[in-house]
């Protein structure tokens, strides 16, 4: 598993093959620190973009005071949160109360460990990257449950229960949707999944039109793309599925008792999970770092395509937040269990039948 780390020569670093253990270790540490820093700074601007898009949809200006066009707003917010007092409720479980946001943020960062952002630009290119992301994202629930329980208060606890039930429900359909992509791509390695979608947008899994046989599953794959997008909204507790923190009913859900830096960590983890979902949609359905057409655009670095696709998906997330009203909780559960789960399960059966009888990329597997 550790043999296929790849990062040969990226960022002008020496090739890992002629390094000893210690050098390799420090190289990895350096890469991880760089990843975390870049992600954090990107996130600051994504939060601003989210607010700006939301404001524009409501014909407001949004944050526009701190820095030019309000560009430094997120940094101002960061300072504000960090310098406030951390309030720990008297009846709370202090250790778990502090631990919860840390778990949330750690899990959110951990999942990025296998996400390839450009050819070779990945911290760890493990051959079961998809499973790793599923495992880590299922751990992210703990931050929310523990946070809600440790607050020793009613609204946070109700919010935590809602949130956990919601995330568990939608994880199931997300798992099935990912399986359809795995079947078509023939690999669990995220880099190989992207590699299977090169040379033109008709190879992307969202619009799978690369051969006459592919027409049989192209509509299903597009439908899976839509389903994954909606499930991702539910999985990250974004509007219209932000019931765990529905202001009108639960004040702020599991975060009610949190203030200052712990709250900041929760919010940071939430946005990090959203960007992870954007990256996953890009990798699984929109061809990762590949250009829509590979004619005459070879001079554009692959990272550009990856980032712009992610930004596009994030823009869609923000637009949904601005224009779709919130679901009711029973409707959310009905949608998850009675619509998404059966249809994605049927799609898995249909796509696997297609792989076996019609062909496709099945040779890529065992």
């Amino acid at each position, binding site marked *: *598993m550790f043999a296929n780390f790849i990062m040969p020569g990226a960022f002008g670093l020496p090739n890992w093959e002629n390094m000893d253990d210690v050098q390799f270790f420090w190289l990895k540490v350096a890469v991880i620190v760089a990843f975390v820093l870049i992600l954090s700074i990107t996130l600051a601007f994504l939060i601003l973009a989210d607010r700006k898009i939301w404001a524009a949809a409501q014909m407001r200006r949004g944050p526009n005071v701190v820095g030019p066009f309000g560009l430094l707003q997120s940094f101002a917010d960061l300072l504000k949160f960090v310098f406030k007092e951390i309030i720990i409720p008297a009846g709370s479980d202090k250790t778990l109360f502090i631990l919860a946001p840390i778990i949330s943020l750690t899990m959110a960062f951990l999942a990025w460990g296998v996400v390839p952002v450009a050819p070779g630009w990945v911290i760890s290119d493990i051959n079961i990257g998809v499973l790793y992301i599923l495992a880590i994202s*299922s751990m992210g629930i703990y931050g929310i449950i523990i946070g809600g329980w440790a607050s020793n208060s009613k609204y946070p606890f109700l919010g935590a229960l809602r949130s956990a039930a919601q995330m568990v429900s939608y994880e199931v359909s997300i798992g099935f949707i990912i399986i359809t992509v795995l079947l078509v791509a023939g690999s669990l390695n995220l880099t190989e999944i992207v590699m299977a979608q090169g040379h033109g947008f008709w190879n992307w899994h969202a619009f799978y039109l690369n051969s006459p046989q592919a027409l049989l599953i192209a509509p299903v794959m597009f439908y899976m793309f839509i389903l994954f997008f909606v499930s991702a909204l539910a999985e990250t507790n974004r509007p219209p599925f932000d019931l765990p923190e529905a202001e009108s009913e639960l004040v702020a859900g599991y975060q009610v008792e949190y203030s200052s830096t712990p709250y900041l960590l929760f919010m940071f983890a939430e946005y990090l999970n959203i960007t992870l979902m954007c990256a996953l949609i890009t990798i699984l359905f929109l061809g990762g770092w590949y250009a829509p057409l590979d004619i005459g655009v070879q001079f554009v670095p692959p990272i550009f395509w990856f980032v712009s696709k992610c930004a596009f998906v994030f823009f869609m997330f923000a637009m949904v937040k601005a224009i779709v009203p919130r679901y009711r909780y029973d409707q959310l559960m009905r949608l998850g269990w009675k619509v998404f789960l059966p249809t994605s399960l049927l799609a898995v059966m249909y796509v696997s039948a297609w792989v076996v009888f019609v062909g496709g990329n099945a040779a890529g597997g065992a």
Partner: protein
Amino acid sequence: MLPVLSFYLISSVAIAAAFMVVASRNPVHSVMFLILTFFSAAGLFVLMGAEFLALLLVMVYVGAVAVLFLFVVMMLDVDFSEMKRGFFSYFPMGGVVAVILLMELIVIGGSYFADSEVTPEPRADGLSNIEAFGNVLFTDYAFFFEASGLILLIAMIGAIVLTLRHRTGVRRQDITKQVSRTRKDGVELVEIESGAGTGE
């Protein structure tokens, strides 16, 4: 060097966490330590090169089973003093069970390590974990695999049947009925002469 260090770190965390599952006073903390134990076990699997098993352990036990444990423990109003009171009366029985389990472990582990120098190794043909599993699971053990799936399905249906109650008077939402409803079904225009009242 690094793998050896990791092994001692992870296994000592696993043992300490497993001890704390039993020793900790708060049941929620116990479940948290149980999760830490599962996680450390997954780390040990990774060190042995069984990354598929490791991630499966995290997904199934940490991601699903322990969440249910946590739910149950949080929802139940457990009286700690009541639980601690029976400790010494249950101690002899529990002790006997623990000793028997320990003996069995020693016998099995002893016979395994005594007559073999075998250490688990990744396959030489470069087949990844998941491919190796798939090759065995869907050929030699296909029947057992499907039988276990069937058993789980029956258990699930059984649980649903046991808890399903048909209550009368519950008003359910029927989305198609709501959507297909028109103005004509919902609104009735009544002409009432002024001063005549509604006839009540």
